[in-house]
């Protein structure tokens, strides 16, 4: 494989996906806090805590496997 040591690890992309989705879902959960959608168990505000979980996981993955970081060779 050509130049494999420079490759961005797949885990970084997983982190980006989680982070972006976490922010979108968390924000959407906050926006609908006072008028939740007509779904079952909407009172639990699942988008807020699920979005929050995704943000935390995404930040950890992005930070740990960022390009140029110590673990960049882990494909």
């Amino acid at each position: 494989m050509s130049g494999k040591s420079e490759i961005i690890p797949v885990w970084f992309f997983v982190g980006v996906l989680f982070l972006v989705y976490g922010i979108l879902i968390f924000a959407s959960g906050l926006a609908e806090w006072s008028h939740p959608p007509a779904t079952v168990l909407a009172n639990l505000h699942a988008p807020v805590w699920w979005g929050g979980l995704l943000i935390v996981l995404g930040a950890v993955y992005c930070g740990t496997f960022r390009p140029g970081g110590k673990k960049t060779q882990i494909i």
Partner: protein
Amino acid sequence: MTATLGMLVTKRLVRLAPVDLAIVVFYFALVLGIGFYLKRFAKTGEDFFMAGREMTAWVAGLAFVSANLGSLELLGWAGSAYQYGILAAHWYWIGAIPAMIFLGLVMMPFYYISKTHSVPGYLQLRYGTAASGLSAVTFAIMTILMSGVNMYAMAVVMKVVLGWDLNFSILVSSITVAIYVAAGGLFSAIFNEVLQFFLIWFGALLIPILGLIETGGWHGMVARIQDNFPGQDFTHMWSNLGHFKDNPMGMHWTGIVFGLAMVQSMGYWTTDFLVVQRVLSAKDIRSAKLAPVIGSFFKMAVPIIVILPGLLGLALLPMHLYPASNLEAGQFSYNEVLPLMLARYCGPGLLGLGITALVAGFMAGMAGNVSAFATVWTYDLYRPFIRKNAPDPHYVSMGRWCTLIGVFISIGTAYLAMGFASIMDYVQALFGFFIAPLFGTVLLGMMWKRVTRAAGFWGLLAGTISSITMFVLMHGKSGERWVALFALSPDAKGLAQDMYQSLWSCVTCVVVTLLVTVVTKPRPDAELKGLVYSLTEVAREDRVGLLHRPMLWGGLAMALLLVLQIIFW
């Protein structure tokens, strides 16, 4: 984009908010971006078809499971759980875990040491061109057919749930897969499969969590199922398998143990190149052995996001679901249980995540099919039969073109599936035609050096023909008589028939292989080094720490499997 999608929408189960559309669009942009980014790293044949053989055990293991986690898998087995109850989990536990462990600990060393690029490639080394060609042709046909049916299944869901036009869903999703696989080859397919694996989990996991909160836990769910379907047993795995009539699947325990666990799942997980290709990309033999073992733990957990939503559907949905073939206006089919549960709990944002997970499942399945098709076509059909000894860049170019052509043929088969509704039911059985006998051929070839080239070919051919013959007889005019013969009881239903069909076709393959071996001349030992058990030295693991040994984790997976069987007995 929102306006464009809006124009393509007709009637729908749910409506996507702008945030949902942003989630779907970001996913497409990311997978395409990864494909273009990885193109620069996929220059040689080894890079394009084998991902440079540089993957860690974790990446190879996750891709191994993810390639199997297509939309048919997600929607189909959730629907089966609604139809048959927890019996459907047999396909994730005893019908997968022992086979994955067997692949890692027993068979993978032979695939890896022989440096083969594919399963037909191993048959070429072990049995020669005839058996390899037969296996490659059947695999290529079935892979493309499966890819098309997978595509059609996804487009139908998009139409029912979101009201999206069938043609729009098929074209946008398949062209995206074609671009990123053609750009980065297996490297790109594996990267996206890992991404899709996480997306599927986090997109679908909320359904069982919220479902169990609503029912008050497992026992509350079981009580509601018993209220909704009195007299039927949907929550036991073994205690109702004593007779075909005792369970909704029409299954007997011998079909699960001998047909599913010992033949069909072994055939699928150890010889279907779609999944084996992911493990062959591992960076060394220990990673190759460990990858399926790691994958087995994740596979064991998949029922949480597939089977449990089906069971929760039995407990919670206000309406009953029906078979797709007998649907009337306003009714929903079994296969729609997962989207229905998604719509029950997920509002804006989470709905987009769930829908993207379903799309990702489709794309993972399709990328797996087309990347495996490109490898088998280029290395096992084009190179040996059409153009030998071409330079490496020529084969890479062929692989890229083949990926694009494979996707376009798949689109054709998707429209074929649209015209013949019953083809959806038959394709699973069709796939079994070739996988069950192939397991007999590969296993005998690996374990016994006396088996000859001619025996490998004739055994595989006889097993395949016997499987097709049994299928035709059991689905013909006097099918009930043949079902009673082959599946041991006239009460055996579809899946039970498939299991016994696999069992007998594998037995036929083994018997014919043994008979032909006895009357033909064996190959010299020197030609079989690295291909057969008695002539291959597999590196011992004495110097590897205990926690890094595949055997330890394989044993742990089997113990966990046993515990699950006892809990849900």
